[in-house]
């Protein structure tokens, strides 16, 4: 199983150990700035801000990121995840900016784009006009120098040099790969070309890689700026909810617009989806002495939509586990598969963001196979119309082989959740379809 090691670069105080540890490794050392970097930094520094989220109660800082003033306006671009606490919990949090001269002031949220991880805020000072978001955006070529600016680890403003390495589509929304150092606290800071044009916004880096960082392409900044200027939001939580609904519609349509690809697992055929966003990994027990065979396929998306620290949504995951008795009798095999079927978590009642799961269970049959099926759904307290769906099945066709499958769709509408569950459940079949279908059709 491969775990995602992507971090968002908003620096939250209580995470300092994690980042301090990361800081000690050579990968995060900033390369010596070139003279070009020096020139860029001194030109840009007046429009560079640190964005802080403070607890209203006591005004202590809760997380910090970076931002930059657009043109000569008072609009500042930053990441959604930098200001997510203000969006999700405006009663408890408020924003503050600090510029490179140490001057600070209040921040007012104007627009959010949770899908691309962007936010626009208004501050009480004007830009000098250094960062421009023109209609014709810079064309980037692989290998060209880029510079990221921001305030890493709350240590002070900094610039880091790296190179552009193409558009990455592993997430749902394309991001630029920047082979340069981005550290926590630089989130929301600008990334510029050698001639000072904005290429993107610092957003995240891979923890398992060296200097593999990601930028939000500047075109989304341009789109969001239009929203901020024309129709500033009032209820940001509602906007986030709408954006998540839009996202899940596209996501489910994308998954269901063509049939699942079928992989064979023992005598069964199982539905999976492999795409740019979704990767499948296999595993097995590989033990010649074991009394049973175990094979599994896990497919999951490598990224989710960050809504808050506790809430990442908009993901689909598929898992199939195939068990076949080698030396086990049917009784002990039953105990084995029961244990495996039992060990499923659908979340508990302590989650503040979601309701407790509610489930339906039944013995069911599709055209090819009988199953024991469980479907559990949870709703989101903050977002109307969004649900987490989990479908979990175990075949009941054979005393000595068993296929257990699980589909998770997080943050989808009820209809879409039912739709993907139904499609998935109907796709699980025996390998030799024709023979079984004729058997099942029998009245």
């Amino acid at each position: 199983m491969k775990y995602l090691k992507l971090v968002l670069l908003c620096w939250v105080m209580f995470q300092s150990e994690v980042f301090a540890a990361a800081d000690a490794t050579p990968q995060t050392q900033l390369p010596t700035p070139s003279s070009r970097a020096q020139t860029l930094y001194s030109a840009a520094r007046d429009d560079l801000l640190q964005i802080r989220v403070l607890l209203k109660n006591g005004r202590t800082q809760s997380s910090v990121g970076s931002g930059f003033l657009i043109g000569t306006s008072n609009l500042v671009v930053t990441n959604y995840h930098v200001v997510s606490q203000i969006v999700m919990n405006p009663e408890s949090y408020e924003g503050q900016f600090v510029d490179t001269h140490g001057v600070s002031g209040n921040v007012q949220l104007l627009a959010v784009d949770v899908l691309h991880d962007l936010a626009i805020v208004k501050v009480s000072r004007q830009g000098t006009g250094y960062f421009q978001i023109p209609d014709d955006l810079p064309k980037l070529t692989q290998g060209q120098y880029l510079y990221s600016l921001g305030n890493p680890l709350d240590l002070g403003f900094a610039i880091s040099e790296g190179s552009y390495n193409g558009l990455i589509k592993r997430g749902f929304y394309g991001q630029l790969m920047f082979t340069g150092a981005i550290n926590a606290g630089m989130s929301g800071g600008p990334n510029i070309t050698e001639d000072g044009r904005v290429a993107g916004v610092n957003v995240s880096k891979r923890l398992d890689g060296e200097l593999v960082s990601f930028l939000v392409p500047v075109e989304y900044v341009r789109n969001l700026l239009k929203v901020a200027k024309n129709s500033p939001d009032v209820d940001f939580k509602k906007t986030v909810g709408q954006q998540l609904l839009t996202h899940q519609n596209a996501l489910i349509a994308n998954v269901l617009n063509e049939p699942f690809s079928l992989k064979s697992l023992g005598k069964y055929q199982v539905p999976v989806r492999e795409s740019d966003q979704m990767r499948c990994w296999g595993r097995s027990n590989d033990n010649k002495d074991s009394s049973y065979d175990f094979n599994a396929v896990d497919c999951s998306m490598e990224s989710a939509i960050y809504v808050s620290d506790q809430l990442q949504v908009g993901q689909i995951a598929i898992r199939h586990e195939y068990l076949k008795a080698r030396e086990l009798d049917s009784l002990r095999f039953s105990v084995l598969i029961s244990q495996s079927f039992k060990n499923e978590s659908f979340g508990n009642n302590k989650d503040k963001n979601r309701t407790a799961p509610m489930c339906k269970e039944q013995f069911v049959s599709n055209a090819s196979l009988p199953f024991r099926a469980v479907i559990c759904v949870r709703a989101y307290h903050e977002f109307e119309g969004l649900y987490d769906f989990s479908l979990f099945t175990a075949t009941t066709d054979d005393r000595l082989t068993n296929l257990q499958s699980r589909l998770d769709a997080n943050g989808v509408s009820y209809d879409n959740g039912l739709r993907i569950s139904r499609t998935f459940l109907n796709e699980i079949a025996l390998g030799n379809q024709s023979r079984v279908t004729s058997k099942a059709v029998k009245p």
Partner: protein
Amino acid sequence: MMKDQMQVIAPYFVELLGRHDEVKTRYRFEQLPISIGSGYANDLILDDTSVANYHASIDINEAGNLRMRELGSQQGLVYQGKRVSALTVDANHVVKLGGTHLRIRSAGYIADNPTINNTGLAFDGIVPAIIGLLMLAISSLLSIWLASTDKFSMASYLFALAAVFALVMLWSGCWAFANRVISGNTRFGRHLFIVSCALVMIDVWKVISGLIAYTFSLEFMTAYANHATVLIVATMVFFHLTTISYQHPKRFIGIAAMLAIVGSGLVLLSNYQRSGSLADELYMSYLFPPELRQSQNQPADEFVQNAEQLKDKLDKARLEKTDSNASIFGQDFQ
């Protein structure tokens, strides 16, 4: 009745009783009347500050029955919670003088048939202990065998067996200790048998409830199976208690029932806190060989469509804002 035939003949016995009506001291008197009080001029001197100097006297009435009379004290004689100035005493009447309980019997008293009191308690000693441990050993070895998918390992069987035995020994040891303190004998074998039976029944119940749930699609059998376990435990406690003392079966039924109710309540409470539902589990997880299935399968599409029914409940639950401090009491029983 036998009691009616009992004759009142000398000598006479006054018995001072303890809290459970057990005899603490017995005094023998050759003749009547017998005077009772805390004063030293009495025939029977009671070391009880709440007993008057000259409290009561015992003599025989015209009908030839023993009679107890009060001699002018503040508290008098108390029989069955009521104050009386004089009463005819039967061999089983317990009279309270101040803080002292006493009973009067004459040489004509015929004790009850000794076998009556030992009904059901004869099953004690090494035989039930061995039967109990044997049942437990079979059931534990079976469950370990069922759960073992690796190569046979003697150690795992022996360790599990040792652990189970140690546990039941400890448990029955505690009961035997209580038994010894309260009624004088340990009855360890019987306590061991009781706990072994209960543990075996819990295991059997798990399999049976799972089997029924799987075979007939009756998921509630396992969803609330823990309550049956609680009932078995309460029944076990009842049998432990009646082993200690056979005198208060009704009281013990009450205690066991209370235990069952409290246990079930705690099960429900912890289920709710853990998963937001009162059932023990979110779904029935037993899978047996498919040949056992008896009930009809539902079409897959219909099953998914039925999940639509959850939506309203979820939307309602969604609006119940979670308060980080909300307890089950705050949320559910308002």
